[in-house]
């Protein structure tokens, strides 16, 4: 079971994607944990690819903030959680 193309990871933050590509060291990005540089490495190798997705399609919103009912139910269905 091999994957040929890089795994796409959706992120709704363009700045984060830009930083992940750009190896330049800025004052504002100096507080990263060293292990996060691993991300740049895997991205360079082509294992992983960060792509931008709109906040509306961001499934992992469900794991980071409390949401209103309609949004919560929409994302829940997208995750595949439903009644039998």
């Amino acid at each position, binding site marked *: 079971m091999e994957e040929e193309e890089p*795994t796409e990871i959706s992120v709704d933050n363009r700045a984060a994607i830009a930083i992940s590509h750009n190896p330049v060291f800025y004052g504002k990005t100096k507080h990263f944990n060293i292990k996060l540089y691993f991300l740049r490495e895997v991205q360079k190798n082509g294992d992983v690819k960060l792509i931008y997705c709109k906040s509306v399609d961001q499934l992992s919103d469900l794991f980071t903030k409390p949401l209103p009912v309609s949004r919560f139910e929409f994302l829940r269905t997208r995750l595949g959680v439903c009644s039998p």
Partner: protein
Amino acid sequence: MLNLGFVKSLSEATLYIRLKDDDILIMSLYVDDLLITGSNELQIEEFKQEMMRVFEMTDLGLMTYFLRMEVKQRKNEVFICQKKYAKEILKRFQMEECKATSTPMNQKEKLCKDDDADKIDEGYFRSIIGCLMYFTTTRPDILFVVSLLSRFMHGASELHLRAAKRILRYVRGTVSFGVKYEKCQIFKLHGFLDNDWAGSIEDTKSTSGYCFTLGSGVFSWCSKKQKIVA
């Protein structure tokens, strides 16, 4: 296992894989239980016979119940849930007859460690969170709020207990829910990643969450407070 030609998985200690003549055989071990799947039914049958000769064991057929997880396998879809466990939780905390809510969390409420509300019995609070933690194996929708509340295990107050009860009320309304995996056209690994920006009131640390899907249904998810201040 290694003698039979299996290779131990690097990322999952109890998962063994065997590749033989273009066929794959996957086996998962849990203490004295064995789960097996593969691309060739004949090979699976052979393997079972082989195992039965060496060990004393019974074949329980298609997987339906494993570690409190109910598995329903139908044509082109697999559904996993913990309906029975959900009912057990509700019974244990006497929440069987409560009014159900549609979300597990109040959107406007911000929980923090030192509120002025009365302190409560920590043991009771911990046991609720512990039960719900195990319940998140098939329920990614309550994971965020459970992990949020678990930060207040020490010194839990009335407000935290109320939030925990709200999860139970949500569970009450969605007892039979689970994750459904369907056959789909585009079979591709896709991940989603998000952070909240300094969501924790006390130390301004952020929470990150991710999930991975192969077209339909998520199979890996996480919600975790970051270790360093960003």
